């Protein structure tokens, strides 16, 4: 304890004794006035009020002091012989002594009551602070939670600044500091030095069972040397432990005149440190549980991906193998038309394989967030024509009609990507719609965007599937009809359209079938908020 602190505590105590003297003086004056008028028996009991008041306001010591002073004062001023400490009447002696005992006992009781009330208040405050700490640390973001706890502690203990350092499992250290001017600066800069103290484990050498100890912060830069002098010996370090491991520390910077923690504050600090440790341990366990869950999901996704890829890739492969294998048979004589047919099938299906691989690559770029549409101004009618021309082998069994009005404005788009979107939608329609039914591709202008719709007369989309239809690898639950492709194309279409600031959706048509629509904004820079 410094000299300064000593004087501070002496000053606080003196105040009680001075008040005791004053209280006794006031009561003495009053008794003097009263006795001039009437003679009252046991008027000395009025001093008990002074003793009580002193006990309640300043506690035990001043109360005893007040009792003795009152005893002496009464003896001196009001008991015969007046202005002598001797007492002539032995009965007076007895009542004086009786008064002294009563005063001291009353003072003790009142002071004890006061002490208990203060402790109860103190504990209530601690409980509230602890509750706040637990609540705040439980917040999603550890850093925000710690900052809130630091603010709460600073307010509660009237500190200049509070800093916290918490090491997380993966090695990262979360540092937060709150406070005013210099203290904050010093805490922010000084945490490094504190971390050094922490790592070196010096605070273990605490001889007393206090939660923390006073340390010197050494700011790393000379620029902060002012803060260094003002903060020397004024930073209190409380280690935070979780499962016996040191995981961090509380750093508390106090103002020079209050750089001391009483028992209650020490208790509060150890409780806060313990709660922080628990909270951090909980957070660690939660993170581990999350990671296990993520791993499990990743595993599931990987299996789904493998299934999807194997199915989607094998379907065209099966056609290629059947066709190529047929050509290879040397015991069969094929007509030139048949040979042409097999060759066409091989080429078409190889192109389809290529599209699937393209979709897979696009999907990985979409998921990886590396998709950057390379936009230019294009005519939608031309794009529709080109896609339908290329997909003629797939749509040969269907009646494909287009409705694209003249004078549709040019749209800013990445041609390759939107080509893929439309291809996926048309291929999807041809896969589901029964042979001979109509597939309609239309484009129109609406509300500052261009909408392209692909409509079919297939089975439509089961209501339960609508919201998942665009999820990658989405597969309608077993037991119900399952799509031949696995929605990879739709997931890619969604990703590509959204990268253009557009939307894509599906609805069932009156009279059966599905309508897939995607929209692209007409004016550059107007990103659709729904996307």
């Amino acid at each position, binding site marked *: 304890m410094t000299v300064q602190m000593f004087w501070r505590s002496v000053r606080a105590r003196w105040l009680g004794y001075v008040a005791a003297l004053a209280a006794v003086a006031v009561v003495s004056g009053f008794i003097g006035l009263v006795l001039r008028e009437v003679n009252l028996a046991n008027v000395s009991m009025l001093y008990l009020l002074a003793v009580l008041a002193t006990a309640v306001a300043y506690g035990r010591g001043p109360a005893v002091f007040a009792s003795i002073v009152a005893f002496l004062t009464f003896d001196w001023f009001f008991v015969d012989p007046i202005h002598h400490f001797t007492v002539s009447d032995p009965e007076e002696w007895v009542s004086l002594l009786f008064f002294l005992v009563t005063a001291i006992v009353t003072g003790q009781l009142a002071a004890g009551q006061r002490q208990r009330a203060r402790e109860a208040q103190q504990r209530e405050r601690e409980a509230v602070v602890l509750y706040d700490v637990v609540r705040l640390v439980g917040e999603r973001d550890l850093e925000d939670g710690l900052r809130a706890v630091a603010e709460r502690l600073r307010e509660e203990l009237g500190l200049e600044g509070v800093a916290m350092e918490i090491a997380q499992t993966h090695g990262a250290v979360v540092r937060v500091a709150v406070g005013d001017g210099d203290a904050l600066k010093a805490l922010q800069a000084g945490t490094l030095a504190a971390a050094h103290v922490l790592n070196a484990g010096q605070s273990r050498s605490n001889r007393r069972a206090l939660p923390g100890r006073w340390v010197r912060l050494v700011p790393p830069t000379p620029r902060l040397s002012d803060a260094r002098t003002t903060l020397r010996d004024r930073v209190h370090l409380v280690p935070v432990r979780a499962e016996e491991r040191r995981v961090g520390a509380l750093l508390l910077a106090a103002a020079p005149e209050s750089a001391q923690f009483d028992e209650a504050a020490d208790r509060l600090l150890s409780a806060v440190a313990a709660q922080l440790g628990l909270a951090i341990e909980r957070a660690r366990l939660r993170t581990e549980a999350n990671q296990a869950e993520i791993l499990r999901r990743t595993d599931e996704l990987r299996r789904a991906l493998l299934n999807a890829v194997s199915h989607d890739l*094998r379907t065209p492969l099966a056609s290629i193998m*059947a066709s190529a294998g*047929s050509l290879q048979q040397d015991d069969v004589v094929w007509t030139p038309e048949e040979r042409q047919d097999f060759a066409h099938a091989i080429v078409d299906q190889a192109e389809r394989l290529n599209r699937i691989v393209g979709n897979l690559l696009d999907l990985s770029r979409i998921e990886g967030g590396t998709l950057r549409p390379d936009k230019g101004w294009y005519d939608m009618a031309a794009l529709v024509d080109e896609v339908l021309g290329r997909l003629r*082998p*797939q749509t040969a069994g269907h009646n494909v009609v287009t409705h694209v009005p003249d004078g549709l404005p040019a749209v800013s788009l990445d041609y390759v990507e939107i080509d893929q979107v439309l291809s996926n939608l048309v291929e999807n329609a041809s896969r589901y719609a029964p042979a001979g039914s109509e597939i309609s591709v239309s484009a129109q202008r609406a509300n500052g965007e261009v909408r392209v719709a692909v409509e079919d007369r297939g089975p439509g989309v089961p209501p339960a599937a609508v919201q998942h239809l665009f999820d990658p690898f989405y597969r309608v639950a077993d037991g119900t009809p399952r799509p031949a492709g696995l929605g990879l194309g739709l997931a890619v279409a969604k990703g590509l359209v959204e990268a253009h600031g557009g939307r894509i959706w599906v609805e069932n048509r009156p009279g059966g079938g599905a309508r897939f629509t995607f929209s692209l904004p007409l004016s550059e820079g107007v990103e659709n908020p729904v996307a």
Partner: protein
Amino acid sequence: MSQGSGARILVVDDEPALVRAVETNLRKHDFRVERAATGEEALEAYSRHRPDLVLLDLGLPDLDGLQVIRSIRTHASTPIVVLSARGGEGDKVAALEQGADDYLTKPFGARELLARIRVALRHVAAPPHGTEPMVAAGDLVVDLEHRRVTLRGREVHLTPTEYDLLKIFVANPDKVLTDRMLVETVWGVAYRQQAHSLHVYVARLRKKLEADPQVPRYLLTEPGVGYRFVTESPSHIAE
């Protein structure tokens, strides 16, 4: 080429390119071909054309392929050859247990397809199982009337369980039998989970009947599905 001799085959697959290739092949080999792209179409085409064999893809856009098998099996024993992707062993087993006769794993070659179709059709032409007292496959002769098994003219001694197992194989020549079907027939439904015993008995039969038990000629393993008793010489069912 006239192996098909006009047999009518219903090809059910939603993949037009594959159907076209299969159809061209089958027509070339003198089969008549009907096609269907969905389960509903398949059932309709089946009742309209009464095909001699159904080639059925399990992954159809509307109905589950298994439902199609069940529907057909309720009133007919027309051979059904299932098309399924590799990795779908569970699907194959389910299909066989629903009554499919054989399966082909996608992608498959044209030659293999024709061989499987031919085998499946031949057994329809053969008289119903159990009426024939003597069954011969290569050097192996099973006399069902006298419970005698001979290999190259020499009698082979089999335990009752071994004989029961062999009898099922002989009664279902060239057909894939799933582990469960075999266990249930030989040991009973209560032993459904005991596929291990089955593997042990198949191994014993191979030891007694096969020239080289490690490269069986009669009792072939269908990985992940079950076993097949092969009556033809291996060259006919070359992959």
